[in-house]
């Protein structure tokens, strides 16, 4: 090999499966030229926990609490979309009050998740002060969630057909205090994150995802909206209480007057969505009707209803990271025949490739974090056979899914 070709060969930098830049395991391989990324590739599947497998051996009342544990941050999102899928199969009409409570919890979850993300993003940039300060202001949302549900993380509040706890009138004051706190904080949050010179230097025009690529790669949630794609499941496909509320997708040009689809725009979208959630919860508290909070309080009755359920349905919810999608098929047994989870990060992961290529090593942490990846939610499959890990080709996967469909149709 001559000297010239030796120099031309890019060197490889592995990042992952565990690395300080990554909050959850994923394996990146970068072909580098100096500090510039020529090619990026990644291999998810490092955090597979077989939750679907466990779920298909349990009844939906049990699965609801299993879905709480799919994600450590958006606990209610998976629960809500799973419950909605099952409710559609069983043709249950959820009481209106329960729908409002679900929306309130989901929006509080968005507040805490987006502020948590903002702190993580600051940490990836080496700005630990913002990490500590934003996580401190996040606590109020966590406290209110604990007040409303009894838990900080795995809320366990949603049941098939409704919710398990009501919001009592004496809790309204605390909720309003919390909402006022975040309203007052809005200007401060926008100022410290968006007007900081170093954050602008690091995030402006970094990790750009164009509008076309965002559409082509089917990105969802804040990642898509930051690239100017006007989509939000809450608006496009209203569910729970969202049909009654004033809501429109948050796009970065509302604040900045333009959309560049960079990391900075993703910060803008998430910070503005915190304020949007505050507004939505206020609307919910004003409109919430009196009434039952569940379709059926007695668990044995719910269980016997499962045995009469036939059919399939999908449940969708706009989680803090984007659309989360649950497919459920029930065939007159207590447990579902099929349960498929598609987390929002699954749709967003591929957007890493166009975002990362051409950027520097220093941009990797913030670009990777900018889609707010949730890999334990995403990882569905890890193939380990005879101690060896393999990757399935598209043909194999098609063959397997055709076989499975035939098996289901029998």
């Amino acid at each position, binding site marked *: 090999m001559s000297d010239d070709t030796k120099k031309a060969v890019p060197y490889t930098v592995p990042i992952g499966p565990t690395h300080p830049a990554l909050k959850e395991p994923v394996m990146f391989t970068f072909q580098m030229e100096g500090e510039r990324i020529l090619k990026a590739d990644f291999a998810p599947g490092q955090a597979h926990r077989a939750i679907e497998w466990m779920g298909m051996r349990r009844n939906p009342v049990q699965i609801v609490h299993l879905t709480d544990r799919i994600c450590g941050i958006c606990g209610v999102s998976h629960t809500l979309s799973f419950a909605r899928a099952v409710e559609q199969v069983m043709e249950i009409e959820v009481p209106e009050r329960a729908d409002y409570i679900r929306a309130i919890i989901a929006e509080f979850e968005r507040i805490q998740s987006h502020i948590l993300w903002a702190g993580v993003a600051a940490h990836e940039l080496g*700005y630990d002060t913002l990490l*500590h*300060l934003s996580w401190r202001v996040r606590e109020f949302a966590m406290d209110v969630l604990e007040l409303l549900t009894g838990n900080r993380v795995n809320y366990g509040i949603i049941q098939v057909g409704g919710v398990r706890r009501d919001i009592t009138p004496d809790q309204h004051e605390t909720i309003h205090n919390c909402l006022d706190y975040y309203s007052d904080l809005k200007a401060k949050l926008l100022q410290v994150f968006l007007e900081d010179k170093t954050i602008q230097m690091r995030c402006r025009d970094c990790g750009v995802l164009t509008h076309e690529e965002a559409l082509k790669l089917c990105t969802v949630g804040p990642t898509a909206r930051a690239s100017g794609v006007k989509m939000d499941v809450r608006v496009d496909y209203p569910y729970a209480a969202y049909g009654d509320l004033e809501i429109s997708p948050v796009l970065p040009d509302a604040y900045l007057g333009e959309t560049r689809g960079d990391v900075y725009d993703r910060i803008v979208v998430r910070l503005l969505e915190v304020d949007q959630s505050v507004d939505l919860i206020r609307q919910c508290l004003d409109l919430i009707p009196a009434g039952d909070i569940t379709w059926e309080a007695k668990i044995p009755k719910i269980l016997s209803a499962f045995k009469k359920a036939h059919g399939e349905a999908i449940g969708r919810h706009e989680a803090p990271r984007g659309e989360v999608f649950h497919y459920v098929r029930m065939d007159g047994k207590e447990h579902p025949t099929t349960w498929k989870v598609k987390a929002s990060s699954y749709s967003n992961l591929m957007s890493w490739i166009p975002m990362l290529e051409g950027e520097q090593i220093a941009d990797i*942490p913030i670009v990777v974090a900018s889609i707010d990846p949730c890999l334990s939610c995403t990882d569905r499959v890890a193939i380990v056979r005879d101690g060896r890990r393999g990757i399935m080709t598209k043909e194999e996967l098609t063959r397997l899914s055709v076989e499975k469909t035939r098996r289901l149709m029998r």
Partner: protein
Amino acid sequence: MSPATTLLPAVAGTIAISAFGILAGLLFLGIDRKFAAHMQARIGPPIRQPFIDTMKLLRKESVVPDNAIPWLFNFAPILALASSITILLYLPIGSLMPVLGAYGDLVLIMYLLTVPALAMVAGGFASGSPYATVGAQREMVTMMAYEFPLAIAIIAIAWRLSMAGIAYPFSLATIATNPFWGVMGPLGIIGGIILLLILAWVTPAELSRVPFDSQEAETELAGGLLVEYSGRNLALFYLAQGVRTIAMAAIAVAVFLPWNISTFVAMSPALALAVDFLFFLAKVLLVVFVSVSLIRVSMARFKITQIVSVYWIWFGGLGILGLLLIVLDATFGVW
């Protein structure tokens, strides 16, 4: 003079300064962590935490990676610590004149300042890890970036002293006993303040602290240069980091804040030595607070390309402005 009379004080002084540098270095690292923690709304570790960390590291195994170059890998931390202590030998501490003041001046210190950084680069390249290699490349680029404004700041001060007719302007003893603020008019004082600011902003890069810590960048390179270091070797680098913190602060103090209490208030020589030493520590604390703790909690990390443009364009330009003001001041005299 016989060799014994010159050698003995030098050896004794070196031992004393080494002990002082290491202990004070660790103490100031602890104080910096406490400052930063309080500014970040945290409680933070106890001030003695760096001592605990060092003791723990010294007891741990030093792992040498398979594809490292062992002798260079093990030699780099020793070189880093030794060269950091050497810098202190040329710096005045309080009213105590430098131990080796007669043998070197500011220009030598500028050279010596690059040695610990070069030791880290050598250690990084010898680690045989891609992260350490990238970190070593970044450290070299950072060094090239900050040397320019640093040199402007140091040279301008010494040049101004020589224009004021002071002999040996580069000698630290001269600079420490003749505060250059006294020889300048208002223009020169503005220039001096600009140069002081530049030195305050070069310090974090010299000490690889946020926002100029791209060579270690925890979230990018997982520790970069130091990623493969552990145990005793890492402890030595950690001690060197503490000593360098003291050294950089002592340079800023010697050049820009050289006053001693004993020159203003009459007191017995022993008391003067103690009071000036405490005053020196207070000045070091001020410098560490401003240019290490305060800067690192208030910014995000720069990319390596941004570090270069920040130092060459912004601080380089500012430095030339400061130099120009000092030249004007020297040419037209005191207004």
